């Protein structure tokens, strides 16, 4: 529900002190939360030693709580460079890991470097692995041999858009973009790159927010955008098979004609591709209803780094035979292989959708509202999204045509609740009753309900426009300006779990004072 990208941007440069780090970690540990996000702020790692000292027996507990071990995280990504794998070279996590590793060796001064870098490119500070070859003219002519001429791209203009990510934060310097048309071509490309030790970066719609889809150096970009055929739709089971380059919105409009819908929906739907969605295990707006892609993807066809085609394109939902290898590739960010085909379970498209845009005064109300919504709206709840006043201000400021649903008053938090069901008047009555009860209970301070689809899309525009507004902000201000204010202000801008943490810290303080 919340994008991780905020955390990476905000936590890294923020002036969080040692004690706070310790408490953050402790809090996460007690709550049994994954520490993935927290650990992304590498200077937290530097403070982990204090945790061991200050809180006895905490280390093992932290390891249990976190999915990534504190000890191994900074070491292992760099090791992966040693073992040759053309895809691993450009793994975004690995590249971040490389940065982590370097910074851990250095003193705290390193943290200040992240300040400047958090909105720049990661390529400045890490070294290209010299064991990878450079592209030469023989390579180009080989690619021209196996692919059509107009799918081997060296044109500067087209390369420059493929080299830079959507947020314009990360830029590579690739000299070659390949557009394979089928699995066989992908396989040939990877087999050749493997034999020549050429690094590769797989790319889909290039809409990612964390720089996973662009090269770090001069990797060959393999974009699957031309592999955009819909293979089949089983109208009884609702299982869709398609190629990886299909654009999410095109798939959804195809399914709309058959009264099905994609179980994943996100702001970038007009350009993002299903292969990329699966590779990054994208969550999206309807996660609360349809769950993760691990549950919805029924099969994959993947080309491994050495060109081997792995056919796991099953379409049996209740498949309990043997190992389920496809899960390895969901969320692997293209480090294990390039996804070429996807088989996905699509739910029925229901006729009645209602959307409410609500204002809350504090974060705990938002949480309680979620809990109440799950119980009170039950089967019709299809989305529950959250934004804070800073995001709202940013969107209103940076995007044109966006209108504040509550023009007269200021609120700290905003929540979107969508219901999807089969009976419009029943669903609407249910939503209205729920909202009235929540308002009477003081959870909501104001709210509007969309009266038509147009109003609903303008509400969604606010939530979906946050990354776009951030992108526009990044062009005009540096992140340093944002976090250069007092740490209390920084807190108001960090991700929601910090809000929660903030309130816990207040409680802790109160307890210690008592």
């Amino acid at each position, binding site marked *: 529900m919340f994008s991780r990208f905020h955390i990476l941007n905000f936590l890294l440069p923020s002036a969080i002190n040692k004690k706070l780090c310790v408490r953050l970690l402790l809090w996460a540990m007690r709550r049994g939360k994954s520490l993935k996000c927290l650990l992304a702020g590498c200077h937290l790692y530097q403070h982990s030693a204090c945790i061991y000292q200050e809180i006895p027996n905490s280390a093992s507990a932290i390891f249990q709580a976190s999915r990534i071990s504190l000890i191994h995280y900074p070491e292992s990504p760099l090791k992966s460079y040693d073992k040759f794998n053309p895809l691993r070279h450009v793994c975004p996590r690995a590249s971040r890991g490389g940065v982590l590793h370097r910074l851990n060796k250095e003193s705290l001064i390193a943290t200040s470097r992240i300040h400047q870098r958090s909105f720049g490119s990661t390529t400045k500070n890490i070294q290209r692995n010299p064991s990878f070859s450079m592209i030469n003219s023989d390579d180009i002519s080989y690619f021209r041999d196996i692919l059509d001429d107009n799918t081997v791209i060296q044109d500067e203009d087209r390369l420059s858009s493929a080299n830079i990510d959507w947020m314009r934060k990360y830029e590579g310097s690739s000299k070659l973009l390949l557009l394979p048309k089928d699995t066989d071509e992908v396989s040939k490309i990877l087999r050749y790159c493997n034999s020549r030790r050429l690094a590769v970066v797989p790319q889909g719609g290039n809409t990612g927010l964390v720089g996973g889809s662009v090269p770090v150096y001069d990797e060959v970009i393999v974009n699957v955008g031309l592999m955009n055929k819909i293979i089949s739709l089983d109208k009884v089971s609702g299982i869709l098979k398609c190629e990886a380059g299909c654009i999410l919105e095109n798939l959804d409009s195809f399914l*709309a004609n058959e009264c099905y819908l994609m179980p994943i929906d996100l702001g970038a739907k007009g350009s993002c591709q299903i292969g990329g969605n699966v590779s990054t295990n994208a969550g999206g707006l309807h996660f609360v209803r349809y769950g993760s892609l691990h549950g919805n993807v029924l099969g994959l066809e993947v080309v491994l780094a050495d060109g081997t085609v792995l056919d796991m394109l099953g379409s049996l939902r209740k498949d309990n035979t043997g190992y389920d290898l496809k899960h390895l590739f969901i969320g692997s960010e293209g480090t294990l292989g390039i996804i070429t085909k996807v088989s996905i379970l699509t739910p029925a498209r229901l*006729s*009645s*959708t209602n959307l*409410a*845009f*609500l204002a809350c005064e504090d974060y705990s109300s938002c949480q309680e509202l979620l809990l109440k919504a799950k119980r009170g709206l039950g089967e019709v709840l299809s989305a529950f999204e959250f934004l804070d006043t800073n995001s709202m201000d940013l969107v209103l400021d940076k995007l044109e045509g966006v*209108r504040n*649903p509550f023009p007269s008053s200021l609120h700290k938090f905003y929540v979107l609740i969508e219901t999807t069901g089969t009976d*419009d*008047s029943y669903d609407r009555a249910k939503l*209205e009753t729920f*909202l*009235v009860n929540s*308002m009477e209970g003081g959870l*909501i301070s*104001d*709210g*509007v*309900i*969309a*009266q*038509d*689809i*147009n*109003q609903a*899309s303008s509400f969604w525009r606010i939530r979906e426009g946050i990354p776009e507004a951030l992108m526009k902000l990044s062009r005009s201000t540096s992140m340093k300006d944002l976090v250069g204010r007092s740490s209390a202000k920084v807190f108001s801008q960090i991700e929601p779990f910090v809000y929660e943490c903030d309130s816990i810290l207040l409680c802790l303080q109160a307890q210690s004072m008592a």
Partner: protein
Amino acid sequence: MKIMVAVKRVIDYAVKIRVKSDKSGVEMSNVKMSMNPFCEIAVEEALRIREAGAASEVVAVSVGPAQCADTLRTALAMGADRAIHVDSGSLGLVLPLSVAKILKALAEIERPGLMILGKQAIDDDCNQTGQMVAGLLNWPQGTFASKVLLDKEKQVATVEREVDGGLETLSLDLPAVITTDLRLNQPRYATLPNIMKAKSKVIKKVTLEELNVEIKSDLEVVQVTEPPKRKAGVIISSVDELIDKLKNEARVL
């Protein structure tokens, strides 16, 4: 002064319209219905006039089947004071002249100082009702209004209209009929407290017999068809090819 606003329940603006296979009309079952966008603007304008103190009451009116009550509820949630639902029963399609006659009958009962309508409904695109009701009532009309100013003292409405090559300003003696254009205002959202208040507001149901209006349909819909599908374009590689296609395929050269 009372303002009467006519609202129509139509297929939502954002829904993809499908024509029924027997070509008798468009598919209406299981389709999202909403208030006609121009009617929303009409309601908003009436509310703004009331909030400015130039009117005391806003009455929303709709003609149609039972579900029209939902649309009226939306108008009430936006802020209208009460609503009148003229049940068209089993009549099916009610055409602009019939609606104008019904509105005339209602105007004679309610005696509003101003009647505001959307300039047209997005389903039939007729753009006739406002003009017809003004004609039947023998009231002045300001159609396609992009700005409305009301002088309470003089009982005059000043209406700006977007015409070819500029703006036309009309001065209308009240009572008058005004139809709204897209740029008149931006309708408000229905807030939760107002939605709640709307639940206790009255929607009065009126039958055609009570209004003493007889509806005769002198128009018959013969057939509804989809517009021809646009053919996919082709990308050509050279100027010569373009000239060749223009000469031999399109035959325009």
